[in-house]
């Protein structure tokens, strides 16, 4: 939604203040638990969204990094007594390193087969950790020793402290996404997501950009893994590498609005609230009801609102509140995906596009001058740029 700068800041400050004082007013541990779940899955969704949303590399294997983060910090804590705060960062680094070979393999495939390959890698890691009984406890898993109140070991007496930890994670995730979204790499990602070949043709180093964003996404997902293990005091391969983590990461982003800053958060709020309501109405006696409802929501979103709730809200806002030509200013919101988005993409003279991409390139110190000149030339030569993503590149404002 387009709001003026000042108003946006006002909303942000109000929202942040509300989130900060929330645990002071909500004392029910059930409610706090739901809030923690919402924040945690929002954060995982935000991490997934960086790669799955902006670059459209639809991974269903993020449980691999969730699990690696969880196991790294737990092994360091239980076997060597190292604080999970350090273990969290170490887990992130391990996940980043693991994403290199995994990405090397999986990025050879595109579209649905990339998705399948990512599922397979998460499964392989789960099987490997089932086999490692010596230092990873095999299938039985292990419990985290309860130290009572030990903030240095990421253990707290009250749930609200966990709430603040995961809130902090989410803020970091959103801030990183925001920085990436408005930088040249964000536009490169969207261009890759729209049409990888076309993006490469204008000089986007797609393999490198994808590798980098995959590393960032893996790092963040691993942080969530460490937090979750510390929160539930237990780890085993089935929870750490659970397929449902991979599913939920993708699900919340798609339902909320794929490739948007707030999409994963809004999607998680909807899905987790639905799930909590279902649980309180029906109890947990009926197995499978939660995922049945999730899948129905997902199907409805895909069939009727491929831009997710954010796209829906934006449409409504522009239709009833403020009529405005559909030109998201220098940022790519949900409008860029789906059939509607492609058709509505703004058409601008390609000369402008070349100039803008040139500017984007200038910020990328590593791109050499000659290459940029060639991009300029090619872009201004070709007036019919095929990909909306490239047009979004072109929309980058000075």
């Amino acid at each position, binding site marked *: 939604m387009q709001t003026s700068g000042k108003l946006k800041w006002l909303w942000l400050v109000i929202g942040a203040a509300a989130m900060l004082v929330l645990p002071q007013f909500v004392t029910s541990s059930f409610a706090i638990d739901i809030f923690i779940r919402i924040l945690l899955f929002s954060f995982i969704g935000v991490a997934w969204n960086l790669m799955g949303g902006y670059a459209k590399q639809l991974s269903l294997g993020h449980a691999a990094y969730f699990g690696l983060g969880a196991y790294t910090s737990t092994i360091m804590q239980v076997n060597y007594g190292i604080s999970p705060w350090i273990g969290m960062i170490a887990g992130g680094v391990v996940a980043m390193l693991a994403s290199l070979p995994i990405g090397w393999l999986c990025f050879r495939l595109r579209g649905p087969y990339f998705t399948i390959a990512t599922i397979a890698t998460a499964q392989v890691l789960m099987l490997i950790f089932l086999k490692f009984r010596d230092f990873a406890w095999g299938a039985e898993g292990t419990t985290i020793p309860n130290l009572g109140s030990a903030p240095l070991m990421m253990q707290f007496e009250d749930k609200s402290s966990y709430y603040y930890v995961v809130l902090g994670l989410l803020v970091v995730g959103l801030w990183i996404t925001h920085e990436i979204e408005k930088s040249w790499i964000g536009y490169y990602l969207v261009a890759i997501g729209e049409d990888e070949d076309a993006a490469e043709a204008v000089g986007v180093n797609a393999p490198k950009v994808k590798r980098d964003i995959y590393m960032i996404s893996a790092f963040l997902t691993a942080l969530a893994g460490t937090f979750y293990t510390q929160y539930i005091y237990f780890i085993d391969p089935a929870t750490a590498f659970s397929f449902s983590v991979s599913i939920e990461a993708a699900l919340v982003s798609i339902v909320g609005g794929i490739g948007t800053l707030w999409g994963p958060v809004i999607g998680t709020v909807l899905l987790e609230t639905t799930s909590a309501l279902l649980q309180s109405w029906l109890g947990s006696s009926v197995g499978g*009801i939660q995922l049945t409802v999730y899948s129905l929501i997902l199907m409805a979103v895909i069939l009727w609102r491929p831009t997710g709730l954010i796209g829906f809200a934006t449409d409504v806002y522009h239709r009833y509140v403020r009529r405005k030509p559909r030109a998201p200013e220098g940022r790519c919101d949900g409008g860029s995906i789906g059939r509607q988005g492609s058709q509505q993409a703004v058409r601008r003279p390609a000369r402008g596009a070349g100039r803008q991409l040139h500017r984007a390139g200038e910020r990328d110190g590593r791109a050499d001058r000659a290459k940029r000149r060639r991009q300029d030339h090619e872009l201004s030569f070709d007036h019919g740029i095929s990909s909306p993503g490239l047009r979004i590149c072109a929309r980058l404002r000075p």
Partner: protein
Amino acid sequence: MWETLAQAVINGLLIGGIYALVSIGVTLIFGVVKIVNFAQGEFVMIGMYISFFLATQFGIDPLVSLVVSMPVLFLAGVLIQHFLIRRVLGPNDMPQIFLTFALSLLLLNLSLMLFSANYRTVHTFYSDEAWHIGGLYIPVAKLIAFAVAMALSGLLWVFLHTTDLGRAMRAASQNRDVAMLMGINPNRVFAVAFGTALALAGAAGSLLMPFYSAYPFVGQVFVLMAFVAVVMGTLGNVMGALVASLMMGVAESLGIQFVGADSGLIVVFALLLLTLAFRPSGLGARRGR
């Protein structure tokens, strides 16, 4: 030693026949409609439940219930293609992947709600029968399943190569645009391809019933194997999927025999990752769209 090896290979080939039915379905849909059906395994599961209920309610042998499960799933496939898949066909991957994925989640969890997570088996008079040839042990139920699976694959091959509709499907899979220009009706071809693929999955379910338990998650076992086989064989190639499925069956069986009882899948995934690492051109040459 050699006997153990031969036995493992035979076990692998027999189950590989079932994998073949599933992966031929996946590859057929991919070839013609250009989407990956993540829900393929769930249709195997539905086929199994159809056979299970026909067997327990009406005493119909699972192999006979093939004549029910295949048409029912063919019809289901046509309807799903018409009402769901048709709406997301386009250059964008995201809706296609997540629509079939949502369908898979939906069917899996619906069956969990309706049938509970219990394992259900059907005992037939041939379920425990086995032939002993030399030192080798060949279970009859699996042999029948393998034979019928191969026969169905053969029938599909004949259908694709001799009938007009089959030729239209192959044409659509080779070059969709040109096929449309030649006057092939895409909706009809897509519907038949989707229906046929689901009918094969249903057949796999019925064939499995005499020697395998039905439970809501059973499809996952087969669909993972099918995806590996489809990636390893050439995408969209029926023959490639068949051969790769048999190979996967053997690889899994050898893994169970020589690496460890829980290592069948590791061997299969390792093969997939090795293929991706060293023969990416054969796999990535055709864009996964």
